[in-house]
Structures are given as structure tokens and as C-alpha cells.
């Protein structure tokens, strides 16, 4: 560092040494009735979120019935796609909820990256890999809008993980809340994708790619728009 730089930093640092004011009456009042609080336990939260969301998703599949062509589909694809959806659910939710060791705020940059990868990846995967059986259905581009019920079911599946995640993260996200919310939405959307994977017998590329895969993108966008209102609340 040159002498001029040292002088500059010394000058600015000297101006920063100010005596802080006394605590405000509002803060004093809060401190007067201070109670112990249960602090955030991220690993417990992710386990709770995954457990409850899993039960909810299983309930949805049971309620809306398992797809009729399930036994006709190639088992390796069925398993691999199921695992991919499951990882798509767990990884973004984990990154959104669990900070790195020694930190309070979650890894929002990694969460953001996972949301983007999941949102694009499942659309591409669905467009290019969509095996079918004799009892599979096809809508094609002609009846593409009829797939809206799958979009609704997928987004509904995402509700539980997103709501739980938002509750768990209240106050923990002074920065990056939209990206963390997008990750929660993408994770929830992947859970929706898993539900559709087990329920919906439509196997054409536009439906599997744009509707089943699109659930991830739509859920991520909705969560990014709405969740910060809840997570930022204690800070406003």
C-alpha cells in the first residue's frame, strides 16, 4: 500500500469512529421483557420439511391414483427419473435452508444456481426423454392446453414445502431472499414433478417437458414473487 493510500484510509477510518447512541426506548422496552427463544436448527428443519412434504406428496398420489401405464414403462427410466425428481426436491431445499457451518444466512447463491438448473433441466429432460407404453396417453400440441390440470396439481404439490420453508426462514434472510425463495419453489416444483411422474399417463414431449418440467419453473417464479413477503416480515 502506498503512503497516499494509507493516508486516505486513515482519513476515512478516523471519521468512522463515532460513539453510538444509547438504546432506543423501543429496544429498551423489548429488552425489559426479554425471554429465551428457540433458535433455528437448519438440519432439523430440512428433515421436517422433507418428511412432511413426502407424506403430503404420497397422499396426493394415493388420492389422484397411480398412472395406469406404470408397469409398462422401462424400469431404469422410471427409477432414474424418480430419483432425479427427488434430488431436484431435496438439493434446492437443503441449500435454501441449511447455511454453511458458522453462518446464519443460507447459501443463497448456490440455492439460486440450483433453482436455475432445476427449472431448465427438467424441461429439457422432459422434452427429450419421455418413453411410453401401450396404455400411455398423448395430447400433442393440438390438445396441449388440456394439460393445465397437471400444472395445477404440480404447483399444489409445491405448496407444502414452500410454506414450511418460508416459515422456517423468517428473519434469516436479510439478503438474497428472492433467490432462496426461488430455490424453495423449484424444490417444491420438483416434488410436484415427482407426483406427476407417478400419476400422469400422458407421455408426449410437449406435455412432459413443458407442463411437468414447467411446474418447476412456475413454482420457482411464484415463490420468488410471494415468499419474501413472509420471510422478510420480522425485519420490516
Amino acid at each position, binding site marked *: *500500500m502506498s503512503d*497516499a*493510500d*494509507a*493516508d*486516505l*484510509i*486513515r*482519513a*476515512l*477510518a*478516523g*471519521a*468512522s*469512529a*463515532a*460513539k*453510538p*447512541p444509547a*438504546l*432506543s426506548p*423501543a*429496544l429498551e422496552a*423489548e*429488552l*425489559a421483557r*426479554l*425471554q*429465551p*427463544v*428457540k*433458535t*433455528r*436448527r*437448519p438440519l432439523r428443519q430440512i428433515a421436517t420439511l422433507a418428511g412432511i412434504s413426502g407424506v403430503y406428496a404420497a397422499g396426493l398420489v394415493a388420492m389422484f391414483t397411480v398412472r395406469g401405464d406404470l408397469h409398462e414403462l422401462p424400469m431404469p427410466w422410471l427409477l432414474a427419473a424418480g430419483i432425479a425428481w427427488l434430488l431436484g426436491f431435496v438439493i434446492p431445499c437443503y441449500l435454501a435452508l441449511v*447455511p454453511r457451518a*458458522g*453462518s*446464519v*444466512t443460507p447459501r*443463497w*447463491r448456490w440455492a439460486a444456481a440450483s433453482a436455475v438448473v432445476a427449472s431448465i433441466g427438467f424441461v429439457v429432460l422432459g422434452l427429450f426423454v419421455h418413453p411410453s407404453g401401450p396404455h400411455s396417453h398423448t395430447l400433442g400440441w393440438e390438445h396441449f392446453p388440456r394439460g393445465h390440470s397437471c400444472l395445477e396439481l404440480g404447483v399444489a404439490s409445491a405448496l407444502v414445502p414452500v410454506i414450511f420453508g418460508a416459515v422456517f*426462514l*423468517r*428473519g*434469516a434472510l*436479510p*439478503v*438474497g431472499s428472492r433467490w432462496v425463495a426461488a430455490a424453495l419453489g423449484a424444490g417444491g416444483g420438483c416434488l410436484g414433478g415427482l407426483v406427476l411422474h407417478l400419476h400422469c399417463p400422458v407421455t408426449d414431449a410437449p406435455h412432459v417437458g413443458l407442463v411437468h418440467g414447467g411446474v418447476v419453473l412456475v413454482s420457482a417464479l411464484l415463490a420468488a414473487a410471494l415468499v419474501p413477503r413472509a420471510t422478510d416480515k*420480522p*425485519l*420490516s
Partner: protein
Amino acid sequence: MADPRELMERYVDGDARAFRELYALVAPRLLGYLMKMAKSRALADDLLQQTFLKVHRARAAYVRGADPMPWIYAIAHRTFIDEVRKKKRAVVGVADGDEVPEVAAGLTGEADGARDEPADPELTKAALEALEDLPTGQREAVVLTKLDGKSVAEAAEIAGTTVGAMKVRAHRGYEALRKLLGAKKPPPQEARRE
């Protein structure tokens, strides 16, 4: 010196004295940061109070064993940004005689050599004016990395940006500051006497 982690843990366990100790430890540093961002002592005081009120209300979000400092700084950053947006104006100008420098002691975390010898008051004034002219993002990057002694990664975490973007902002901000200071710096004592 007390460890912020230990103080935070005692505080979330209901120890109000630990909060006061945490305030005494953190508030001077945070006030320095907020003064340079807000450019007004009164506004910086208000933002500091808001920041600690938010920390208090969000204390359940703390993760035991974690360093609370980046989180508290990030809340201060967010409070400042919210205030700027709310008031629809980027800054409040420092009027002549506004008491920016006050007690030149007791700070920790400044850049190396910042306390070795007293700063030239003329240079301080010129440097503060030059700092005020920087865009908010660059000003924050300079304050956090050059003055508060934060690493680029810590500063990025506080400001909610990437490490690369913070590096660029800090570099550009510091270069701009030097240029601005070159233009504003008062002439040397000898030259002025002539």
C-alpha cells in the same frame, strides 16, 4: 474482548446484559459503516437503532455456533437499502458542520495502519466528500473492504452480491475515490501560505 458468538448465545437464552455487551461491541463499527452509507449522523443513528430492533425481533433465526456479525451487517445493509427506497432518494447530504467525525478511538476492525497516527483533518474532509460522490454500491464496497477490514467474501455476503461483483465494485470504487480525491484534495500547507 468478548466473542460475538458467545454474547449472541447468551442473548438468545434471555440474558439482556449480553445484548448490551453485543451492542457495545458491534454498534461503533456498524455506526461507522452506516454513517458512510447514509452520509448523515442523524440518519445513521436511526438506521442503527432500526438494525438492532430487527436483530432483536429476528433473533430466533440465529443458528447457534454461527458468527452473527455478517448477519447483523446484512441486516444493516438491508435497513439502509429499504430506507433509501422508502424515501425515494439515494442520500441525505452532509451539511456543513454536520458532526460526522466524533470520537476517534475505540474502534476495531479498521484497515491496517488506520490508527497509527492522527489523520489530517483536511484530508479527512476531502476524503469523505469524495466518498459521498461514489455510487452506493461502490461506496459500500470501499467501506466494507477497505475501511471495515472485511474480506471480499464477507462483504459480498453482507451486500447480497457475488464475490466477483464485490471485487469489481471495490476496485472501481477505490480507483474512483483516488481520482475524486485528486481533484478535491486541498493544496499543501506551504502552497496555501504563499
